[in-house]
């Protein structure tokens, strides 16, 4: 039942009527004629409704959630409660610096820590998510070329394995996108790269470890190829979790990088967001960083704005991006410390490689059987789809019945019928084993009783939903019958 269906006209002005002030100082012609039609429910009704709704979600706090590329690891509760201290929540974004030294100290130290773990020269925290970080990064690349008077560079190279945000972000920066194929071993096809790189190349956007779950062994060659052609190297940091404290994008030769703090730094995904997508840059791109940033002048912290950074690509949001998310990431970074950060990559990699090895033993096909997994790996169900008629989506939906969130399905696009599995470092071995056993069981079901998969899920609040109908018979807002 929707909250609107629990609404009763007059509930709020029933017993003990609310004082209704109709903004008497506002001239009539500005006013709306009808009330906005929000639901009229009691506080208990709202609390009960949304509590019960929440229970219909899978989440890290309730389920194993090995969603590849998304790094669904434990979101420490302290990060939430400390970021929500009244002093932080109540601070207005335009409040004078003297009343923001606490939050600015945290942001400044976060900038410094992110510089260190990425090996970059400077960091701006303002992008609101990975995609906005990508936009900022590509905008800086463009600003750099423009500053050099090098306006012929109109093309950005993006491997076919890349996340959809990469080409979309490049286009928003006015670039055309050229796809680079992935070779059969999972690395970027360097020969193809060499063929297409040239004076029109503004840069290459690379995810390394890549979205196919491997570390590109030719990274140095790729890097020098692009650099030699005068292009810049963009690092999509969505998979930073796999190498935190082990290898640094700066050391690989990247000029600009975004980080998804809502992945590697464990800020919660909140059913879709918010995230934070700080960007780090090499020295030559530093003047172009988006504002605001935080500076530390002797004793005091202060905001760096357009005035301080005349070459900045500008502002990406009205204020400082997702400050509350940044505070959560800061707390997480302090809790881990350098020792903990190294463990993140080690144990996420251990978990992924263990699962990969075991899944293989259970008869699943790996996309790259000869490669190490990074913090994630790919299983392809092409064979099963062909032999049994059950596709990846069927497996995914059946997993839900067994209390596991499904891994990422059908991404990256280049691998047919794929499952991208990312266990993360915070899951224990028993949970991984239970998942593997369940996959084996579902495989058996697929052989013996494929309908059980095709009709899945069976035990959730709804059965399989009709996506086609949703798009065809658009119903995007409730209307009273």
């Amino acid at each position: 039942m929707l909250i609107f269906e629990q609404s009763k006209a007059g509930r709020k002005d029933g017993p003990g009527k609310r004082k209704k002030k109709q903004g008497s100082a506002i001239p009539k012609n500005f006013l709306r004629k009808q009330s906005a039609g929000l639901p009229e429910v009691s506080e208990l009704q709202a609390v009960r409704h949304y509590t019960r709704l929440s229970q219909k979600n899978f989440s890290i706090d309730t389920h194993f959630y090995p969603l590849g590329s998304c790094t669904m690891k434990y979101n420490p509760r302290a990060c939430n409660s400390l970021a929500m201290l009244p002093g932080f929540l109540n601070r207005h974004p335009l409040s004078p610096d003297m009343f923001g030294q606490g939050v600015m100290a945290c942001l400044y130290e976060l900038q410094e820590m992110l510089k260190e773990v990425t090996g970059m020269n400077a960091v701006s925290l303002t992008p609101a998510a990975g995609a906005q970080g990508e936009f900022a990064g590509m905008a800086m690349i463009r600003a750099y070329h423009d500053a050099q008077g090098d306006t012929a560079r109109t093309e950005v190279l993006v491997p076919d394995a890349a996340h959809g945000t990469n080409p979309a972000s490049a286009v928003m920066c006015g670039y055309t996108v050229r796809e680079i194929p992935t070779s059969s071993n999972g690395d970027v096809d360097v020969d193809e790269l060499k063929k297409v790189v040239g004076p029109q190349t503004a840069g290459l956007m690379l995810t390394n470890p890549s979205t196919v779950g491997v570390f590109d062994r030719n990274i140095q060659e790729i890097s020098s190829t692009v650099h030699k052609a005068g292009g810049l190297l963009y690092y999509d940091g969505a998979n930073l979790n796999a190498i935190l404290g082990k290898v640094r994008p700066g050391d690989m030769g990247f000029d600009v990088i975004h980080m998804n703090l809502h992945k590697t730094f464990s800020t919660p995904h909140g059913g879709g967001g918010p995230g934070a997508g700080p960007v780090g840059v090499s020295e030559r791109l530093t003047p172009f960083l988006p504002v605001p940033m935080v500076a530390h002048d002797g004793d005091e912290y202060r905001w760096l704005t357009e005035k301080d950074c005349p070459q900045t690509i500008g502002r990406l949001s009205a204020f400082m991006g997702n400050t509350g998310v940044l505070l959560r990431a800061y707390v997480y970074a302090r809790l881990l410390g350098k020792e903990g950060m190294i463990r993140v990559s080690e144990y996420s990699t251990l978990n992924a490689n263990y699962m990969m090895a075991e899944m293989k033993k259970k008869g699943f096909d790996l996309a790259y059987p000869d490669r190490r997994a990074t913090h994630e790996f790919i299983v392809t169900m092409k064979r099963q789809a062909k032999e049994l008629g059950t596709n990846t989506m069927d497996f995914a939906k059946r997993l839900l019945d067994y209390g596991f969130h499904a891994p990422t399905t059908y991404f990256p696009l280049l691998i047919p019928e794929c499952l991208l599995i990312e266990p993360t470092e915070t899951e224990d071995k028993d949970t991984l084993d239970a998942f593997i056993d369940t996959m084996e069981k579902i495989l058996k079901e697929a052989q013996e009783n494929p309908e059980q998969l095709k009709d899945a899920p069976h035990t959730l609040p709804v059965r399989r939903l009709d996506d086609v109908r949703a798009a065809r018979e658009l119903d995007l807002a409730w209307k009273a019958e």
Partner: protein
Amino acid sequence: MPFIPHTEKEVKEMLDAIGVSSIEDLFDEIPPELKAVSIDAVPSTQSEMDVSRLMMERAEEDGRQLSFIGAGAYEHHIPAAVWELTTRGEFYTAYTPYQAEASQGTLQLLYEYQTMMSRLNGLDVSNASLYDGASGLAEAVLMAVRANRKSKSKKILMPKTVHPHYRKTVEAIVNKQDIKLEILDYDATGGHLSPEQLPQSPGDFAALVIPQPNFFGVMEDVDMLTDWAHSHGALVIAVVNPIALALLQPPGEWGENGADIACGEGQPLGIPLSSGGPYYGFMCCKQALVRQMPGRIIGKTLDMDGKPGYTLTLQAREQHIRRSKATSNICTNQGLMITASTIHMAILGAHGLEEAAATSNENTNTLIDKLTALPGVEKVFERPVFHEAVLKFDTPLKDVLRALNAQNLIGGYSLEDEYPELDNALLVCATETKTQADIDTYVNHLERILSKQETVKCPVSPKI
């Protein structure tokens, strides 16, 4: 150690299963030259107890002032239930609802949100959030350029009464696609976009942006402006305050045909000030434009048994399907903020929002009346305001604000930097959270400061 559950025994078993002898072996595909990493500048691990204490001390320094700034972010009362529910693990630690059947909680809530927002804005459809109000306006501009079939222009008319940070953000985001913003000045008396400010022969342009209330708190003639833009074949992008919408004419009803796109900052609907974020941008539009709208959209559908359910829909607009041809690059959005706003709106209802809006309006008018009763303080613009207004001082504003700060009071937002023509002008705001005593505190401090009385230097008990 923090958050790693493995026992040594398990690690050994896992390494054996993989067939390697150490975790380090798992990194053997990384070129060894790259691995000589040190991250020593990162501080050592600290216990939750120690970090808690550090954060409490830092939070203590911030956000405890009696504040009269608005300027795009507004202090409103948020019922306790809102964030207690929003931070429930099931909402807080879920991902984007890719597996719809396992995400009906979030999905139904988002559908309810879309319904609330489209009602508040008087438009057909709503998306499920953009990053914030400013970047949302940039997306609206891109959308308008894509969507306007009557115009091939990449020109947007942008009034100076739109929040200066919004204008900068839009500029930063859209300028790479050759979109040009033509800035329209405001009426010096009214503080609004009067017919005189509209270009006589505007030529082809894709859209006119109309803020309501505008950055000065002033109410624009939205009907006239909307009809004017439509008469030139342009679309209308409304930038609105959602609390104001509880009282004001919704964009969908502006002029003859209504605004085409409405967007704005969702923060006033249950989101804490939090130094500027996370907030969220909302966006609504007419049904005809829905396929040009950026961001996630939730649709109602049926399951295999014919039971209603909710799912992400119109994904063919999005980057994960359309890639370089997507309507936007947005992926992660501000979902949790929507969760809070939806619960906030459900608890307050239309009446609650109306009350907050009306009280804010009254408080601001009271504040203005009392402040302008002081010698040397004047109202700058004549037109009615919603919950903000511009005051002009005949003394250097910086000194006045600093003197107020010393009393733990934030007097407002100085317009000097962004509007050099408005020197010593201050934008003030008093929402429903301000009591008469708060307003009097401001007035009394200001009176003393302006009359150059010695201010008492003892620490004033801070406002929480």
